[in-house]
């Protein structure tokens, strides 16, 4: 088992993709760690699908308000200059192409950038806002473990799990590496410390484009 990056390092790497002044949606779970790594001096408007632009962070004990939560139903704070709105407006932002970047998890991503993250065989299905993000966001970065718990590749030639959206993923950050999705397929961009090109190949279910520099 190759360790590579831990979750914090993956979150830090994802945060480096966030541009100053951008509107960013974070998926529930691991992507919320990105909140801790926004570079100082950058103003970022975090969008949460339940109706907030300008989420601050998780609310400290004693400061939680039952009507101020994020998409993961955790109590949060908001920044100066934040705004609240109902669900139709929130999803207009997502579906209508107004959100600059979404960082979310996945069960599988294909070599074409197809995304599966809403259900798997034997699971009770849940969608939330995943399909809306896939349908409309300008750029989607997937943050996930490179393989399943039992070592099966999550990066695959074709999805075997039900699809969330087609050709919607731009970049993938795993514990082993960073990959770009291109017309030619998955392109290796960076390796995590202590991880070899062969490690990535061995744990990936799709052909990879390996640039000369590796």
């Amino acid at each position, binding site marked *: 088992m190759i360790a590579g990056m831990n979750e914090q390092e993956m979150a830090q790497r994802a945060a480096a993709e966030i541009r100053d002044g951008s509107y960013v949606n974070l998926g529930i779970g691991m992507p919320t760690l990105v909140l801790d790594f926004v570079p100082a001096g950058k103003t970022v408007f975090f969008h949460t699908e*339940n109706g907030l632009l300008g989420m601050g962070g998780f609310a400290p004990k004693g400061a939680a308000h039952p009507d101020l939560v994020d998409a993961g139903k955790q109590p949060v704070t908001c920044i100066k200059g934040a705004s609240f709105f109902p669900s139709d407006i929130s999803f207009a932002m997502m579906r209508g192409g107004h959100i600059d970047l979404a960082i979310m998890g996945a069960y599988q991503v294909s070599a074409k950038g197809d995304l599966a993250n809403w259900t798997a065989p034997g699971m009770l299905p849940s*969608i939330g806002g995943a399909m809306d993000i896939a*349908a409309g966001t300008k750029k989607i970065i997937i943050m996930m473990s490179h393989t399943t718990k039992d070592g099966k590749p999550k990066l695959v030639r074709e999805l075997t799990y039900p699809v969330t959206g087609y050709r919607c993923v731009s970049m993938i950050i795993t514990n082993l590496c960073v990959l770009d999705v291109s017309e030619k397929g998955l392109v290796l961009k960076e390796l995590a410390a202590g991880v070899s090109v062969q490690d990535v190949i061995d744990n990936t279910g799709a052909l990879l484009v390996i640039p000369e520099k590796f």
Partner: protein
Amino acid sequence: MITKAFGDSLGAIHDVGDGAIIMFGGFGLAGIPQNLIRALYEKGTKDLTVISNNPGSRLGDHEYGLAILFKAGRVKKYIGSYPTATRSFKELYDAGKVGLDLVPQGTLAERIRAKGAGIGGFYVKTGAGTLLARDKETRLINGEEYILEQPLGADFAFVKAYKGDLYGNLVYQYTGANFNPLMAMAADITIAEVEELVEPGILDPNTIHTPGIFVQRILKGERYDRWYE
């Protein structure tokens, strides 16, 4: 003077019968009509169709909100986007005791809005080409595939606002709005519970989120649990 006010939650839901189709505002526990949910539980109404983003919410080992109706076996069908929010729903679903109509969250919001706004359906990219597009009409618009979605209404909408007046004007706070203003437009009878109920003229007309025309009944909620530490 015209007033839409009811004295308590049970009174406001007096005519909600078995088999009713009810929309419940709220996302997680934010903006849920918790007093109306408790009243419906006490009333014993059953065979409900529940439309809500999630079928209640779980915090630690406890489940709150709509979960009490599901656990008591009062719900025959759930229409929403996030059923995995509670363990109780999964148990009922696995046992075949509750039906599920899964709808992407944005599509759920827009279907409800469409019903309230008199729109007969709309084409949306969300879900095109997926399992959820089965049996749905598709159309290529500017080279991209869209699917036709239908409006979604209900017999009753139970909504929660921060403040309201006797004419039914509502103001939400923080992320407590979510589905509430949409559902308020989409049901035959909308019942709003509020933390503060005031005389007409007290709320600034510039700040009203839901105009009173969409609200048939209003009451001051008996009790507001805060859940979080």
